[in-house]
C-alpha cells in the first residue's frame, strides 16, 4: 500500500510538464468513465421508471397482480420469487461453500488444494446460459425424480413442500443458483481465512485443541465478518442472476405457493418480457423492477465489501 502513495507524490511534482499533464488528464478521463457509468445507470433507471412509481407509488412493490392488459403493475410475485430462489441458494451454498473454504485453506494438503481451487474457479467461468441449458435438460429432470420426489414425500404435509415437483420451478432455480454462487463464497471465504494470522492458530493448538476446535474457536471468529461478506456477495449474485434462472424457473407470473411452483424472478421477468413490452407504462414498469433490483444488489454489495475489507483489507474481493 505504500508503493502507490510514494510514486504518486513523486509523479505529482513532475507533472508540471505539458505532455505529462496531458497524459495525466487523459488517463484521468478514462478512470472517471467507470464512476460515470455507475452514476448514469442509477439515474437512467430511476428516470425511465418514474411513470410507474407516479401511478402506483409504493403499491407497485406490494401489489400482487401484474397484468399488462389491465395496466395493473404489482411487483410482489417477482420480489417473492427472487427472494425465495436466492434464499434456497444461500441455504445450500453457504454451508457447503464455507466448509469447502475451510477444507481448502486449513485442511487439504497442497497437492489436493491446488487442483480443487482451480476447479472451483472454472465453475465460475462457465457461462450462465450453459448452466441454464444443463439445468433445463439434465438437472431439472434429475431433481424431479430424486431430491424433489423425496422432499415431497417426506415433507409434503408442510404446505410449502406440497405441489407437483416436475423439475421446473423455484427449487430447481435455487439449486442452479447454488452452483453459480458457490465459487464466489468459496473464493472469498478462502481468502479471508488465509488472512487470519498464524499466531491465532498456534495459540489454540498449543492449548491442546483439535484441528476443528482451532478452526471454529480461533480462525472463524477472527474471519467472521469476512465470511459474512462472502455469503452476502453470493446473495447479491443470486438475486441478479438472469439467464440460468430464466430457463429453469418456469416463467409464471403469479405468487408461488410451494417451492416446486413455477415462478418468476425480477431478472427473469425482465429477460422474458422486456423486448416485447410496449413503450410507456409497460416498459416503465419493467425498468421499475430493474431499479428495485439495482438498489438491492448495490446495497448488498457495498455492505459485503466493507465486511470483507475489515478482515482482509481492500483488494481481496474483486471476484
Amino acid at each position, binding site marked *: 500500500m505504500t*508503493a*502507490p502513495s510514494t*510514486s504518486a507524490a513523486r509523479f*505529482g511534482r*513532475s507533472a508540471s*510538464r505539458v*505532455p505529462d499533464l496531458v*497524459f*495525466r488528464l487523459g*488517463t484521468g478521463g478514462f*478512470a*472517471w*468513465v*467507470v*464512476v460515470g*457509468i455507475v452514476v*448514469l*445507470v442509477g439515474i*437512467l433507471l430511476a428516470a*425511465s421508471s418514474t411513470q410507474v412509481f407516479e401511478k402506483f407509488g409504493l403499491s407497485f412493490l406490494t401489489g400482487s397482480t401484474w397484468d399488462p392488459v389491465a395496466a395493473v403493475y404489482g411487483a410482489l410475485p417477482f420480489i417473492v420469487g427472487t427472494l425465495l430462489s436466492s434464499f434456497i441458494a444461500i441455504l445450500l451454498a453457504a454451508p*457447503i*461453500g464455507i*466448509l*469447502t473454504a475451510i*477444507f481448502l485453506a486449513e485442511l487439504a494438503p497442497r497437492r489436493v488444494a*491446488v487442483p*480443487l481451487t*482451480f476447479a*472451483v*474457479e*472454472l465453475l465460475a*467461468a*462457465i*457461462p*450462465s*446460459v*450453459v448452466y*441454464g*441449458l*444443463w439445468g*433445463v*435438460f439434465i*438437472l431439472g429432470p434429475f431433481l424431479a425424480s430424486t431430491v424433489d420426489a423425496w422432499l415431497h414425500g417426506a415433507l409434503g404435509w408442510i404446505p410449502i413442500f406440497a405441489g407437483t415437483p416436475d423439475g421446473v420451478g423455484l427449487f430447481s432455480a435455487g439449486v442452479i443458483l447454488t452452483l453459480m454462487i458457490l465459487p464466489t463464497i468459496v473464493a472469498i471465504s478462502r481468502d479471508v481465512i488465509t488472512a487470519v494470522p498464524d499466531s491465532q492458530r498456534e495459540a489454540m493448538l498449543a492449548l*491442546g485443541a*483439535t484441528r*476443528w*476446535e482451532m478452526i471454529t474457536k480461533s480462525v472463524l471468529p477472527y474471519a467472521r465478518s469476512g465470511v459474512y461478506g462472502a455469503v452476502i456477495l453470493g446473495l*447479491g449474485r443470486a438475486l*441478479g442472476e*438472469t439467464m440460468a434462472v430464466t430457463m429453469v424457473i418456469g416463467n409464471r407470473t403469479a405468487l408461488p405457493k410451494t417451492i416446486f411452483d413455477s415462478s418468476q424472478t425480477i431478472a427473469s421477468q*425482465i429477460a422474458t418480457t*422486456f*423486448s416485447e413490452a410496449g413503450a410507456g407504462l409497460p416498459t416503465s414498469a*419493467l*425498468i421499475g423492477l*430493474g431499479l428495485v433490483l439495482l438498489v438491492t444488489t*448495490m446495497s*448488498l*454489495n457495498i455492505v459485503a465489501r466493507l465486511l470483507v475489507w475489515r478482515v482482509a483489507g481492500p483488494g481481496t474481493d*474483486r471476484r
Partner: protein
Amino acid sequence: MAAAVAARASISDRLTGVSAGRRRTTVDRTMRTLSFVAALLCVVPLGAVLVFVAAKGLPALSLDLITKGPKALGIGGGAANAVLGTLQMVPIAALLAIPSGVLGAIYVAEFGDRRLARIVRFCADVLVGIPSILIGIFVFTFLVLPFKQFNAFAGSVALAIIMLPVVMRTTEESLHLVPNSLREASLALGVPMWRTVLSVVLRTGLPGILTGSMLAFARAMGETAPLLFTALGSRLINVGNLGQPMDALPLFIYTNAREPIEALNEQAWGAAALLLLVVLFINIAVRARSFGRRIG
C-alpha cells in the same frame, strides 16, 4: 500425525475425562470429513456440466453448425449467424473496454491521490456487482430507444461495460506489483513520466494486464443478458452492419433451448459445446500460468 493426535488425546483425557476426549476427536474427525465431502460437492457439478455438454454437444458440433446460417424457413442449417455475431461484437467490445480500462487503471495506480483512487476502485467494484441484465436496460435506454432499432453496436457497448471493471481492476493490481525502483531508475535517466509509464511500468505489468483482458474477453463471450435488449439476436447472418440486430452464441443457445423442437435443442447443445470449449480454453490457458504462484 497419529502419534501427535494420540498424545493430545491422552493429555485432554487426563484433564477432561476419557469420554470427553474421545468425543472431541470424533467431532474433529467428523467435521474434517464433512469439509472434504463439501469440497467434493463443489466439484461434482463441474464434472456433470462438462460431461453432459460434451456428450450431448460434441455430436451436434459439426462443420455445418459453424459454417451455415439457420434456414429462412423451417428447421435446420447451423449457427453461423451466432458464431459470426460473437466474433464481431466481442472484439469490438474489447476494443472499447481494454484501452479504457488500462488507461483508467494507469491513472488510479500511478497518478491518482489516494481518496480519488478509492472512489474509482469502489465504483469499479460496484459495477462488477450490478446484474448484467440491468446493464442491458441501461444501454437500451440510450443506444436503442432513441434510434428505435435494436443494434449490434449497442450489444458491443453493453459487453464493454461488463468487461471494463474487470480489465481495470486486474490492470491496476499488476501495476502495483511493478517495483518502484524501476520507475525511479527510468525517471532518474531523465525519461519523462508519460514515457516511463508507457514503456517501463506498462511493459513490466503486461503479463498481468493480458491475463485480466483475456479473462474479461472470455466472460463477455458467455454473456447473454446484456444482449437481449441491445443486439436482440437474429436469424440472419449479419456481417459488418452494426446498426442492425445481430446474433451471438449465448443468444443462440438461449433461443434454441426454449423451442419445443428437438432438432433445435440439439443445435443449442452443439453451440454450448463450442462456447464452452473456447471459454474454458482461454480460462485454463491463462489461469494455469499464474496459478501456482498465486495460491502459494
